[in-house]
């Protein structure tokens, strides 16, 4: 078997710790193809499974040609509602807001297009795939409801992770009435699909009532809990291995139906089964970013100060479950106004249930809000950056809490200086490049909350000066293998080359969720705490040992560095880990640590990362084709663990913002509810040639309140701000305001 690489040693050439721009520790495995993703798992006796999915969006399956599939050479079994293994729990039962209803062949009903309706298991992938086609389902079809006008809107009980749908303060109508200038605009954002490059894959194997599952997961503990409930087995009987995720972006946060179906298929046939979603299978049962229609009404006084901000969102959840895109959240955070109203309404449609997708809420909401702010600035005759500064929120709007830190002014200033913003003409359609292309500049404010979940970790320091940290954390590309190692190495006071990190398995202490831009804070916090526990015990041994040069220094009187404990007040007095442990007759010290949010700090402070994104676009004046030529982002997100990886996170987020503004759009035929572009050829995401010149400025920010490490998240904020900045730049280039995203060339033909 090829290596799964749960143990990684830093290669030569990298020495350092927190703040150092180390290259990725798992890099050599990824560039050689040796990093094993779930679908690369090939246990002996493996069978292949393929999904048969619904080609209607609403109705029932009335027939499947099981015999035809079974006759196909190589087909071993066909799993349908008639023979699917019995589950211990109804997959539609809700344990909480994060338990999403799954379609696991419990009945014949169809609730969305591409819903799994059968699984074919075969000796080869080719046979399984053809077997699924041969099932040729027959349906009783009902007319689907698709789109935001599908039904009368209602007020959802909660939005996002359960926030109230309506919030605000003051009197928006009065504020608008008092305004010297007003705008009202409706922005539409389409449904988008995560489209991680790695399709959801699962290799499942049962040994009695013990399950081993190789599958990408952004939350191993929750996935184990869900599977334990569905199969009626203790969580300890389940082992999930997820050393690498080929991207997640939220789609691998909660285990999806097809991943569970792989386990059911393996149980049905009594052999290991691999089920890899085809790309089109990912448009339905794996969640998506819901479409929104956002109505923004803004008023400003003669000085450009906002007198009112009304942000109304209409969004869609599925007919059978709840997730309402919290698009208005950004208006809670960004601008000061005495009259603020944020409301969310929902409709139910015949699609899969929407889910968290990179910057849920903030991405959709900031695309609209940042365009509206631009429109308001224009209505006031003000520079859009100046307008944002005039309306800068010194405290969090609505709650009135101070920010734990907020270096947004510095982001605006540094980003504007780097971009050359001061040369921007106020009026649109003023700039051309040497080739006659229209040029436009736009700005958008970025924001994302600094969240934190719960995690625990184990750390070990050995007499030979090497260490290990163990945590069920997940690396989906954000750089956890490296960042957690940096935190652990500093915590244990050893060179990172002496440190081994083990992660990505559900058998390890819970690493929490790799999501919400909170993984470094959460898993990093746990690793830090575990390392501290180890060092505390080591210090206890040394400082109470009269033979030690550290005797009597007290725990707080020593620090760990370079494999030694050193007296804080006299660095000439130190002793190596090996020496301390040798006298104590020990060969290692093990410690555990936990991390979670501090409720007191959370209550006292508003915690958000911030940024400013400046975009330059070029537009062909006749043909309308658009290209983003330059993006400069300046972001403040607390302490930076690894600037190289943080820059990459910002770049990735900015590319997502570009994609949001110009490319992504899931197209459904409203007559059938079927997808017209459930593939990567027609569902456009940017290609390399769409990439502009990019810069990310890491603005210094100290945050003593946010968490023990002082870090905020960096994975999602890059999208926010960018989509709006690009939309604003397109307006500035062309004079055309496109309020329905993505902005495509046909809108700019004039």
């Amino acid at each position, binding site marked *: 078997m*090829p290596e799964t690489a749960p143990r990684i040693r830093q290669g030569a050439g990298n020495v350092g710790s927190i703040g150092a721009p180390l*290259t*990725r520790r*798992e*890099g*050599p*495995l*990824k*560039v*050689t*193809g*040796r*990093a094993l*993703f779930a*679908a*690369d798992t*090939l246990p002996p006796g493996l069978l*292949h499974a393929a999904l048969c999915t619904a080609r209607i969006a609403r109705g029932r399956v009335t027939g499947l040609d099981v015999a035809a599939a079974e006759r196909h050479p*190589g087909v071993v079994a066909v799993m349908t509602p008639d023979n699917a293994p019995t589950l211990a729990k109804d997959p539609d039962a809700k344990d909480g807001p994060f338990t999403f209803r799954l379609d696991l062949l419990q009945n014949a009903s169809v609730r969305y297009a591409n819903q799994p309706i059968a699984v074919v298991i075969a000796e*080869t*992938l*080719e*046979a399984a795939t*053809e077997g699924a086609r041969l099932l040729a389902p027959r349906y009783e079809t009902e007319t689907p409801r698709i789109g935001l006008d599908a039904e009368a809107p209602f007020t959802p009980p909660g939005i996002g992770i359960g926030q109230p749908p309506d919030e605000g303060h003051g009197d928006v109508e009065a504020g608008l009435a008092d305004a010297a200038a007003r705008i009202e605009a409706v922005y539409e954002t389409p449904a988008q699909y995560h489209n*991680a*490059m*790695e*399709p959801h894959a699962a290799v499942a194997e049962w040994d009695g009532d013990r399950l081993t599952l190789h599958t990408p997961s952004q939350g191993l503990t929750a996935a184990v809990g869900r599977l334990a409930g569905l199969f009626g087995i203790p969580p300890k009987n389940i082992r999930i291995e997820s050393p*690498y*995720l*080929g*991207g997640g*972006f939220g789609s691998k946060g909660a285990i999806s139906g097809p991943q569970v179906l792989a386990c059911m298929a393996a149980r049905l046939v009594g052999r290991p089964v691999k089920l*890899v979603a*085809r*790309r089109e299978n990912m448009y339905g049962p794996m969640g998506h970013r819901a479409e929104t229609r956002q109505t923004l009404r803004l008023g400003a006084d003669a000085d450009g100060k906002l007198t009112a901000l009304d942000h109304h969102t209409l969004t869609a959840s599925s007919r059978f479950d709840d997730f309402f895109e919290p698009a208005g959240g950004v208006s809670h955070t960004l601008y000061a106004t005495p009259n603020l109203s944020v409301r969310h309404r929902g409709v139910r449609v015949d699609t899969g249930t929407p889910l968290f997708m990179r910057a849920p809420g903030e991405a959709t909401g900031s695309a609209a809000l940042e365009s509206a702010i631009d429109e308001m600035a224009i209505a006031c005759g003000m520079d859009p950056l100046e307008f944002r500064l005039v309306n800068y929120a010194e405290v969090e709007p609505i709650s009135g809490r101070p920010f734990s830190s907020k270096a947004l002014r510095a982001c605006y200033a540094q980003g504007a200086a780097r971009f050359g913003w001061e040369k921007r003409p106020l009026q649109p359609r003023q700039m051309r490049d040497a080739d006659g292309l229209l040029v436009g500049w736009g700005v958008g404010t970025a924001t994302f909350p600094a969240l934190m979940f719960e995690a625990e970790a184990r750390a070990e320091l050995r007499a030979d000066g090497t260490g290990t940290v163990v945590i069920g954390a997940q*690396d*989906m*590309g*954000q*750089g956890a293998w490296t960042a957690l190692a940096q935190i652990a190495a500093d915590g244990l006071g050893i060179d990172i080359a002496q440190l081994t990190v083990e992660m990505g398995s559900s058998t390890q202490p819970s690493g929490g969720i790799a999501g919400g831009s909170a993984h470094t804070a959460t898993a990093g916090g746990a690793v830090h705490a575990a390392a501290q526990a180890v060092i505390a015990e080591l210090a206890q041994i040394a400082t109470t040992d009269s033979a030690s040069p550290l005797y009597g220094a007290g725990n707080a009187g020593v620090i760990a560095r370079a494999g030694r404990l050193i007296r804080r007040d006299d660095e000439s007095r130190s002793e190596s880990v090996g020496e301390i442990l040798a006298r104590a007759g020990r060969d290692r010290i093990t410690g555990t640590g936990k991390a979670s949010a501090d409720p007191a700090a959370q209550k006292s402070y508003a915690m958000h990362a911030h940024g400013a994104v400046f975009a330059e676009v070029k537009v062909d004046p006749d043909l309308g084709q658009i290209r983003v030529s330059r993006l400069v982002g300046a972001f403040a997100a607390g302490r930076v663990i690894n600037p*190289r*990886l943080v*820059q*990459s*996170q910002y*770049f*990735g987020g*900015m*590319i997502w913002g570009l994609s949001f503004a110009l490319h992504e759009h899931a197209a459904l035929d409203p007559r059938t509810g079927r997808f017209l572009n459930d*593939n*990567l*050829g027609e569902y456009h*995401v*940017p*290609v*390399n*040639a*769409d*990439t502009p010149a990019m810069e990310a400025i890491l603005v210094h920010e100290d945050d003593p309140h946010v968490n023990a490490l002082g870090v905020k998240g960096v994975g999602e904020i890059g999208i926010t701000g960018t989509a709006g900045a690009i939309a604003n730049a397109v307006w500035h280039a062309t004079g055309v305001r496109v309020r329905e995203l993505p902005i495509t060339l046909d809108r700019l033909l004039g």
Partner: protein
Amino acid sequence: MSIPLRLTVNGERRDLVLEDPRVTLLDALRERLHLTGSKKGCDRGQCGACTVLVDGRRINACLALAVSLDGASVETVEGLANGDALHPVQAAFIAHDGFQCGFCTPGQIMSAVGLIREMREAGESVGDAADVERVREGMSGNLCRCGAYAGITEAVVAAARAEAQAGEKAA
């Protein structure tokens, strides 16, 4: 049905018998030869994660029928490094952070190796901004959802320039 298939994979003769003519080159590599470095992201030639070199040229392995390639020479990501010594393109991807999750990376790297060969054969340089644009276009058959394109382009340009300089010294 059993179909004999002879391939040379990373310089090594690999004989296999396909039970089925439907097997793509990608599935032959991954599921039959257990060379799982090449990835399946779309299975339709729309993402580039499966890029390998066949007889020296980069193609989408998911859209090539294995039986049709009988006798071909295939290079995959597993064959690039020389022991622990990374291929210059691999090293450049690490140095320039040309990946995040790593799933598209084997395809990106094989595509980059193919592109650099194509540019060399066509006598194209990587000397100025226009050539960077050429690299961007040449790498556009490889999607990266993490958005690591800036690092990818830097890595490919750096590797191509290093190779050109090495070539000049050798000449």
